[in-house]
């Protein structure tokens, strides 16, 4: 079976959804067994219904694995074709265990 490791995503741009509902986009630099992540050049994308998506620069970031829900491989071409400034949505709900 193919592996579930995040190894193929290293040095690629990823989009992380955290348990508190945030969306953080950055370049994956490292990870471990517990899904702790190191992201470089990261920014948060803040969703709201009033204005379009607002990017907030975070820089180098470590996210603790406990707090991670989804790690998505960002298709950069697809992402560039999206008009984030006109995208309105409720922020994601936090994970409730």
């Amino acid at each position, binding site marked *: 079976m193919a592996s579930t490791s995040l190894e193929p995503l290293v040095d690629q741009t990823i989009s992380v959804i955290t348990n508190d509902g945030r969306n953080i986009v950055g370049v994956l630099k490292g990870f471990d067994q517990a899904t702790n992540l190191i992201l470089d050049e990261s920014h948060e994308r803040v969703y709201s219904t009033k204005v379009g998506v607002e990017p907030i620069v975070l820089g180098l970031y470590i996210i603790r694995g406990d707090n991670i829900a989804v790690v998505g*491989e960002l298709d950069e071409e697809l992402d560039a074709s999206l008009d984030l400034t006109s995208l309105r*949505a409720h922020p994601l709900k936090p994970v409730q265990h």
Partner: protein
Amino acid sequence: MLFFSYFKELVGKEVTVELKNDLAIRGTLHSVDQYLNIKLENTRVVDQVKYPHMLSVKNCFIRGSVVRYVQLPPDGVDIEILHDATRREARGD
């Protein structure tokens, strides 16, 4: 261990994973690991209008700890085999 083995049998099938934040993601099961972390390919969020947060994501890794349900294809479930296996495990054989 039982469900790990079970999910390994489902690799290549189309599943819908519902998360504990109500997000539901459909895609082809690529792999699972011992924590029941799941990798999906060709993903789409079930309600893209309400949840446009993953529009530019086509392959993703889902942490096992945030999975609420996995909706399986009907032909991917052999209930008799699962019954037997769970009973055996409960007996401790």
